[in-house]
Structures are given as structure tokens and as C-alpha cells.
């Protein structure tokens, strides 16, 4: 709170106090209390299993494919994912599903099949750690600092989304709910490290599904099925554009999101998605904890299967709200002024609509669990990158293992404190998700360019990697600042005067990625390459991948990746 800006606090204090949607019964409070009790217990229970840095930061590298895979998805399934995208579904319709399908599935499969062997064989502890081996310490420092910054900002966004739930549903004091939840996360992550975070993420994943699944089930019963829902939305909004994935994306002005299919395919599907799912250490760290290479390759594939199902509990409630809610929701900035409910409140509103005592407590617990899993993912990744890639790499290289573990525990608390402060800064954003997309394009898109060239092109050099990453990041920030200063510049960034904010994010990511690639290639061709013998285990073509001996064809990761890919294509055709 001490570092929250004065304008942010002013806006915060001006927010009208709406009457809470519901008062929790004793049963609901008992359900929430049991959840808090068990997550803290897990932290204390696993404290004895996190005494070395390998145990604290990498969970001993002994997770099964299922646990690593569920944790991989759960760390991403924060309250922001749940509420933000449910709100986006209300605002933009089924187009929001792209962030779960084309914006995730191909990249997750690519991570499991192509990239995971390099991360795993090199035995690095982090993505910046891989960059250190491939490009040197300059690139490592740049990516580690960018990642640490992004991580705490993301964590703050998660916290803000959480505070909205508590305000809308329960009428709880925002500060109280923020501090109770974040201190709980800090305790169980600081005590049990990544193992505790992963254990809780699996638990939270189950809770999120159990708490949220009733909304689409009961919602579809009320709407009379999917076909009736489509008709009701079309009748209410006067357009069928809200229930088509691709058919409205031939032109920016034909769909509610103001986006073109090229932005979705190239900006989201290739750059942002691959950047996030293959280089964001928050999720990659979960896979690195797998006990062997096969588990590490299967984890993202298992995660992809579950990720593909998430729109059922996130997007569908947003669409159902378009049909069944008796009032209209408004953007966050309007809600602050008028006292109406905002898009981001759609999920709790639907929860209250269908759930009475007991189930309401379960649903609220699911939202709290989503917040905690997202935040735990952020702070555990932050602690690892800070300790290994900033503190251990540049500030204190020769400390003892126990010293680094202690540093990791302290970093967890510090990361939480910074996140709490950040939570108050994000309240200016009209839409939480727009803000997140902007952040992704700053750091994630150029990083993907650097990592993928490093893995696939042995000619990429140390200087090329550093300058490419720097140029890409600066391009993203520059384009963002340009549009912020002059909104009409959007027509140049997104290639159309009809483009809206989401489209701008996609194209900004694409341009920054391309600049990163071009600069990396250009500088690499002008500088001396690393000897090939130093690239073993790091680059495709000079790395001997270990033979995998599966007893049956159906045990091969490629088979399951193929099955997921077929379902993915089928779903896109069905909802075309």
C-alpha cells in the first residue's frame, strides 16, 4: 500500500460502494476456511522437503507428467484468466475463445514436442538460465530483469481481479481480502517452495473446475441448450457475430473485437502464444520440475487437453450472461462512475445467480484458488529468477546452497509485497485484459524470437541475441507509447483505422517479434559465431536427443499431441 500512487488511491476511494451481491452463510465460510487451512498445512507439511535449492526452486525434479501438466495449466489459470476472460466473452463474444485455443494449444504442443528436450537436456533452472548458456550473461540479465518486472505486475493484476470479486460478491474490504490471500500465498510458497506451489496448484485446479462447472451446466439448462442460447444472444444484440469464431474476422469492423484474422493467427497464434507458453518461466518452470524427459514432454500435452476445455467454464458463462442476465454490464471505467456492474464481474454475478449456500462458498473458493494459483506461480518464478539469474549470477556467485534457499524464501515475501503495491496501480485500466496483452507484447514476444532462433539456428551469436532482444522490447514499448500519445496511430500499428485495442496488441507483438528476429539475424551475421562444439544440448542439429523407448505406440508424446491437434482443429471448424 505504501507504494501505491496517489491517483490510483484516489480512484480507488472514489469507487462507489455497491451493496454486496450476497452474504455468506456459515457453511460458505466453513468451506473457505477449510481451503485456507489445507493450503497452509501443505506449506508446513512440505517445509522439510525444500531444504536444498534443487528442492526449493525445482521441486526436486520429481513430478509426474500429470502433476506437472495440471500445475502447468493451473499456474496460468489465475483469477485474471477466470474473471477477465469471462468478462471479455461478455464484451466480445466467442472470439475470446481464441486466447484458449489458437492462443495456447499449438504453442503448448510445440513446447512438448520440439522445445522441451533442449530445456530439459541442458538442465537449466530457468529460461534466462538457458539464454545464459546460449547467448551469455547480457541476454540473461536483460530477460531476467524484464521477466521479474512482468511477473510482479502480473501478480498485482491478479490481486486486483481478486479484490473485485471480494467487493462484488461479499462486500469485503478490499485491503483485508488482498492481504489475507497474499500473505497465505507467501507463507505456503516460502515454506515449501515450488513443490508446495505445485501441490496447491493441482488442488486449486480441481477446485476451480468443481466450483465453476455448475455455472455453464445450469446456465445451459436455463437457456435451453447451445442452439437456443445462440438465438437468444442474436435476438438480444441484433447480430450473430458474438457466436462465431472465424467467420467474422475477414475485416476489422465485422466483429465486436475489431480484429482481423491475420492478427489472430500471426500476432496471437504464433507470436504471443508461442512467446508465453514456451518462454514464460512462470509456466515453463512447472514442466522443468518433471522427473524425466518423457514426463516433461507429456506435461504440456496433458496441459493442452485441459486448456482446451477451459472455455467451457470461462467463456460460456460470459455468453450465457448475454442471454440470461436481466441487466447490461458496462466497462470498468463506466462502472466506477455509475455504480453499475462491470464486464469483469460477470463470473461472480453468474455464480450468485445459480448457487445457494454451500455451492456459493465452493464457487468463491474456486475464485480465491484461481487467484492463489496465479499468484503462487508468479512469486515462485520471481523468486527463482531473482535468486538464480540476478542475485546468484551477478551479485553473489559463490554463496552456499542454503544461502540461496534463504534468499528464495525472502524473495517470495518481497515479491508478494511488491505485487500488493502493484495491485493499486492497475485500476486505471479500462479492461484488465487489454493491459495484460500490452505487457505480454513488451517482453514475451521479443523473448520468443530470441529463444527460438537460439534453439533452431546455430549461427545466432551472443551479440545478436542481446541486441535482438533489446531492439524487440524497445520496439514494443515504443509502439505502445506512440498509440498512447496519439490514438490515431493505431491505424498504422494495426494496419486499419477500424482496429481496436486488442488488435493493436496483436500487431504490436508481431512487429516487436519481427524486429527482434531481423536484428538478431543481422547482428549475428556480422559477429563471430560460437564454436559448434559449445552448442551441444542447446541447439537443434548439433544436439543428440536421447532415445525414448515407449513400450506401446499410444505412449508416445507425438501420438497424444496429434490427437489434441485433431480435436483442436475440429472445435475451430464446429464453432467457425
Amino acid at each position, binding site marked *: 500500500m505504501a507504494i501505491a500512487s496517489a491517483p490510483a488511491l484516489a480512484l480507488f476511494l472514489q469507487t462507489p460502494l455497491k451493496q454486496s451481491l450476497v452474504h455468506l452463510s456459515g457453511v460458505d465460510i466453513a468451506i473457505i476456511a477449510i481451503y485456507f487451512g489445507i493450503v497452509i498445512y501443505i506449506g508446513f507439511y512440505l517445509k*522439510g522437503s525444500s531444504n536444498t535449492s534443487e528442492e526449493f526452486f525445482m521441486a526436486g525434479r520429481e513430478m509426474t507428467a500429470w502433476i506437472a501438466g495440471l500445475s502447468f495449466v493451473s499456474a496460468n489459470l489465475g483469477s485474471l484468466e477466470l474473471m477477465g476472460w469471462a468478462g471479455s466473452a461478455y464484451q466480445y463474444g466467442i472470439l475470446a475463445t481464441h486466447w484458449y485455443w489458437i492462443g495456447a494449444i499449438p504453442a503448448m504442443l510445440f513446447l512438448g514436442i520440439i522445445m522441451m528436450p533442449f530445456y530439459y537436456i541442458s538442465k537449466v533452472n530457468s529460461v534466462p538460465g538457458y539464454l545464459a548458456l546460449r547467448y551469455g550473461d547480457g541476454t540473461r540479465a536483460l530477460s531476467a530483469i524484464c521477466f521479474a518486472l512482468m511477473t510482479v505486475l502480473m501478480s498485482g493484476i491478479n490481486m486486483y481481479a481478486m479484490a473485485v470479486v471480494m467487493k462484488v460478491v461479499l462486500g469485503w474490504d478490499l485491503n483485508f481480502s488482498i492481504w489475507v490471500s497474499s500473505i497465505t500465498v507467501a507463507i505456503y510458497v516460502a515454506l515449501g517452495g515450488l513443490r508446495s506451489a505445485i501441490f496447491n496448484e493441482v*488442488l486449486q485446479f*480441481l477446485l476451480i473446475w*468443481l466450483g465453476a462447472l455448475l455455472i455453464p451446466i*445450469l446456465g445451459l*439448462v436455463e437457456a435451453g441448450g447451445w442452439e437456443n442460447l445462440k438465438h437468444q444472444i442474436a435476438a438480444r444484440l441484433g447480430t450473430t457475430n458474438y457466436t462465431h469464431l472465424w467467420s467474422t474476422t475477414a475485416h476489422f469492423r465485422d466483429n465486436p473485437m475489431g480484429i482481423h484474422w491475420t492478427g489472430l493467427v500471426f500476432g496471437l497464434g504464433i507470436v504471443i502464444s508461442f512467446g508465453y507458453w514456451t518462454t514464460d518461466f512462470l509456466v515453463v518452470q512447472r514442466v522443468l520440475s518433471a522427473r524425466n524427459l518423457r514426463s516433461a514432454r507429456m506435461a504440456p500435452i496433458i496441459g493442452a487437453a485441459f486448456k482446451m476445455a477451459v472455455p467451457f467454464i470461462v467463456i460460456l458463462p460470459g455468453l450465457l450472461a448475454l442471454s440470461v442476465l436481466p441487466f447490461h454490464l458496462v466497462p470498468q471505467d463506466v462502472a466506477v462512475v455509475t455504480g453499475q456492474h462491470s464486464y469483469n464481474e460477470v463470473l461472480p454475478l453468474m455464480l450468485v445467480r445459480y448457487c*445457494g*449456500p454451500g455451492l456459493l462458498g*465452493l464457487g468463491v473458493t474456486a475464485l480465491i484458488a484461481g487467484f492463489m494459483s496465479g499468484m503462487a506461480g508468479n512469486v515462485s518464478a520471481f523468486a527463482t529468477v531473482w535468486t538464480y539469474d540476478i542475485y546468484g549470477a551477478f551479485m553473489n556467485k559463490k554463496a552456499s546452497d542454503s544461502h540461496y534457499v534463504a534468499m528464495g524464501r525472502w524473495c517470495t515475501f518481497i515479491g508478494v509485497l511488491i505485487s500488493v503495491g502493484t495491485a493499486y496501480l492497475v485500476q486505471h485500466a479500462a479492461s484488465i485484459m487489454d493491459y495484460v496483452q500490452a505487457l505480454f507484447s513488451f517482453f514475451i514476444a521479443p523473448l520468443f524470437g530470441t529463444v527460438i532462433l537460439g534453439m533452431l539456428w546455430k549461427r545466432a551469436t551472443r551479440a545478436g541475441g542481446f541486441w535482438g532482444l533489446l531492439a524487440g522490447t524497445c520496439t514494443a514499448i515504443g509502439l505502445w507509447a506512440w498509440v498512447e500519445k496519439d490514438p490515431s496511430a493505431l491505424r498504422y500499428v494495426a494496419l486499419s483505422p477500424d482496429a481496436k485495442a486488442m488488435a493493436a496488441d496483436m500487431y504490436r507483438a508481431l512487429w516487436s517479434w519481427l524486429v527482434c528476429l531481423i536484428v538478431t539475424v543481422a547482428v549475428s551475421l556480422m559477429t563471430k559465431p560460437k564454436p559448434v562444439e559449445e552448442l551441444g544440448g542447446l541447439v537443434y542439429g548439433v544436439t543428440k536427443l536421447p532415445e525414448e523407448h515407449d513400450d506401446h505406440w499410444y505412449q508416445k508424446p507425438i501420438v497424444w499431441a496429434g490427437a489434441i491437434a485433431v480435436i483442436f482443429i475440429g472445435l475451430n471448424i464446429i464453432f467457425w
Partner: protein
Amino acid sequence: MRGHSSIWLFSGILLLAYGVIITGTGLWELGHPLAHPPVLSWLHAPIWWGAVMLCAGLFYTIRFRHHR
């Protein structure tokens, strides 16, 4: 490092506890209807949803009680 209980055991215990509480609440509501029932309350979602959780919790608790 000592062995520790499986995450699936923790999941089972939590599901079991929630299943008991939510099913119990649903059954209690049969005799004590809510003053402001949620939409579709006649479907008695707490009873069958709680029962699903209870069964899943029982299975995981028993299946993984000695698993490390």
C-alpha cells in the same frame, strides 16, 4: 529427503469434506427452503453435485492413503 503423501490424498480429503458439507446443506434445504432461492433451485444442485464430490473424495482418499 523423506517421502511425503501424494497430492491426490490431499485432494481426496478436501473433496470428501466438501462433499459432506455441500450434500448435507442440500438435504437440509429440502426441509428448510431458502427465503431467496437461486435460479433453478428446484434442480437441487447441492445434493447431486455434493454427492459427486463426496464419491470422488472417498475414492481418492482410500486409493492414495498409503501412496507416497
